[in-house]
């Protein structure tokens, strides 16, 4: 069942499983953000740092890219914003976490990439793992 609620200026829907494929292929920035939030909630700058650390500094998101992606991911329902935060933290700082839908989409994207990799190996484009 589709259940829509209206938040601020845009609508989003918690989507049925069939809607997951509509998100694919996931933009790389989205996937990086989902990975960064995979093991717990983080605020924006922490996401940037996590992405940079995981990729040995090869992927450095600019604040514009990060927050533009965050806004779209919030709208799509891939992540949501925490209403509670650590007591000693700056109250203006916003924390984000992956939604169930976001996890489902990330899993689907991982499957897609895995299948792609298998195809690449099957054709000999990429060497098989020893």
């Amino acid at each position, binding site marked *: 069942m589709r259940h829509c609620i209206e938040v601020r200026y845009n609508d989003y829907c918690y989507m049925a499983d069939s809607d997951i494929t509509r998100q694919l292929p996931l933009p790389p920035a989205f996937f990086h953000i989902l990975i960064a939030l995979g093991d717990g909630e983080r605020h*924006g700058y922490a996401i940037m740092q996590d992405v940079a650390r995981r990729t040995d500094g090869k992927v450095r998101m600019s604040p514009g890219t990060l927050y533009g992606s965050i806004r779209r991911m919030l709208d799509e329902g891939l992540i949501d914003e925490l209403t509670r935060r650590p007591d000693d933290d700056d109250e203006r700082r916003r924390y984000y976490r992956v939604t169930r839908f976001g996890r489902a989409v990330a899993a689907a994207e991982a499957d897609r990439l895995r299948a792609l990799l298998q195809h690449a190996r099957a054709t000999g484009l990429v060497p098989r793992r020893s």
Partner: protein
Amino acid sequence: MKHRAVAERVFGLVLRLYPAEFRDRFGHGMTSAYRAARMEAAARGRAGVAAFWIGVAVDALVRAPGEHVMMTLYDLKFAARALWRAPVFSVVAIATLALGIGVNTAIFSVVHAVAIQPLGFFDPARLVRIWEKNDRLNIAQFSTSVPNYLSWREHGRSFAELAAWRSGTVTLTGTGEPHRLGRMEATATLIPLLNVRLRRGRNFSPAEDRPGAPRVAIIMESVWRDWFGSDPSIIGRSIALNGVSHTVVGVLRDRDLVGTAQVLTPLAPDLSREARADHRLSTIGRLRPDITLAQAQLDMDAVAQQLARQYPESNKDWGVRMATFDDWIVPPEMRQGLYLLLGSVGLVLLIACSNVANLMLARAALRRREIGVRLALGASRLRLVRQVLTESLLVALVGGTAGVLIASWGVPALRAALASSLPRAEDIAVNAPVLIFSLVVSVLTAAAFGALPAMIGSRNDMTGSLREGSRGSAGAQQGAARRMLVVAEIALATVLLTGAALFVQSFLRLQHVELGFNAKHLTTAMMGLPEARYPTDLARQQFYRRLLAEMQAVPGVEAAAMSSGAPFAGGNTGMPLKAVGANALGAEDMQADWRLVSPQYFRTLAIPLLRGRTFDNRETGTHGAHSIILSADAARRFWPNADPLGRQVQLGNKQIFQVIGIVGDVRNLSLDLEPRPAMYFSSEQILWPTMTLIVRSSGSSPMGAVMRQKVAALDPQLAVFNVRTLDMMLQQSAAQPRLTAWLVSLFAALALALAAIGVYGVIAYLVAQRTQEIGVRMALGARRVTVMQLVLGHALRLSIAGALVGATASALLAPVLSSQLFGVSPHDLLTLVSVPITLVAVAALAGSLPALRATRVDPLVALRTD
């Protein structure tokens, strides 16, 4: 420390590039991210800092616009969904705007083609039309003579080039049936002056523009195509014009020339054969780059004064008048008429905007809960204003698109209707500039009808609106705004309806104007006898005499006559005239129109013979009596208290004629011009190169075919052209006033309907809002009449206020119309009073429907609901 402060300021500026909503949500996070990234960069040294700032700049330039686009797309999507959910509102609003924008697009396409689009000539601002004028004879503009044109060339210092032409017709033979073609006898300077490139061949050489030179011609592309099958070897080919062989030297595109000529031959001015008083030449000039029109006017005034001293006989009192090509081709009154039409459709659009604004306010009232919820959830007021404006923009754009479709459907009809009465009407089209106009109008329209609802709708008191059914201060504001809009609508409709009423009256007066002749059952046809085959006046007169006799014998023909020009055929011939002996004007002359007519002319046109006799065989041949017939007006001016018969008059060319008859005054040129003094000469004595055959039939069946047949029986080589009934010519003369009256009436009807819908909407809303109150009143014993009075009172108050404002505005604006009206004052009291009364009546009628519904309110039901 200082660096950090600067950096913080830059971060603030970068954030300003993003939409406010985005900034509010993520501004803090972004600033901290920038700050941390800058610290990291600083650790990498100068190169790191430089790379960081470049990154910040790129980020801002790429991401911020993207966010704006996304935001707008979200807004549009939201607006589309909201409109989809309110289909009745959407359809009514879009249809209203489509009509408003549609008529504006259509009328703008006319204004653009005729009055705005630059003329298709090279550097048209420097092109001027030059006339002679005579203030004493009250002649504002007149053709010049060949000697004067040559003197202007010699003495004028303001022009890079001057050119002149004489218009006429020629018969083209040797290409099947003989064809009558419009001909310009032009100077060799005409084509270089207009700076047009010939399609083929070359211009006349200066040597060919001299008397006695070999005969050459330039033909228009349409003639080349229609009569010569676009023959590629046309240049050098010989064609017969009026039976005389001419060598084709060039082909010119039809639109590249001024006027409607089809053939150009050299003027070859021959001073020995031209009189200075013979005004038949049209003149244009190209100003030198350093000369303004005013300077050129001064220069030519001096030249005219010099010529008046040198040739007082012909040039005394004659001056020079000049106008730019723009003002010549589209006269200022016509331009003003077009802008008036545009203004009236502008008013229609304003009324449409008020109506849609009203609808949106009503809708905003219905959506108060939704807006309240959104405000409670933290949406900013700016955000809501933006949302309402986006919705307005979407409605306006959809309405505008539909409007453009309506216009592109109506424009071909408009073009056809205007073709005969407007210059450049063939250019009327829905083209790129017109589409840009429609887009701009749509956007402005959205702002016009969206602003008020957006401001008021977003000023929602949260707690009040969340309680279902409450009426907060925003509701009261909405009510006031809606009433104001209705007052404005009625005022605008009053202005338009007043204008329409004046135009219709003006048109009706034109239709009932006293012509001085009976136009029913008259058919005219023009012909010209080529000199090659009819070398003498006698031969020509014999032909016309035989033709008239043949026509008279046709069954159903009541009378037939020849004239040098039928009334309303376009074109005019005039000459100064003075009375010999004692008369009221003394030695002063009077400008009078002249016509060469056959004896039966007055009987054929049913122009009353007031005194004396018409021409007969005494006025035959060059040795016949020098007799003249004057119009009543001309005679009255010379001899107001004496018998004009037998008196003598002297023409501009010194010839003396004796008055033998006085006939009624006739409108010859235009319905809105008073009859001018006129004189008539016998066509048995003098002939004009082209003559018009006029036939009155007993029935309404047109005689054109019989006329062609009879001419062909006498001379199969002769071209008959401009076969028209006089009714057609009169209709043509009234075409523009008819169209203006028709269009303005249409717009006024549209305005009236929209205003009535507006009143209905507001009163219906009022009734719906006060159902409970009305129920209580009725439960307490109020009679239906009292309720009716209560509701209708509102409608009446609004409409009377609107009508009063409208009547005042009409009275103030009326003088603008005066040049466009005939026989009716722009301050016509009856119109200024009756139109507002009509509007109040219509508004009351529109308000009476919801008022009636109010009287049927069941007190029990009303009290239970709400």
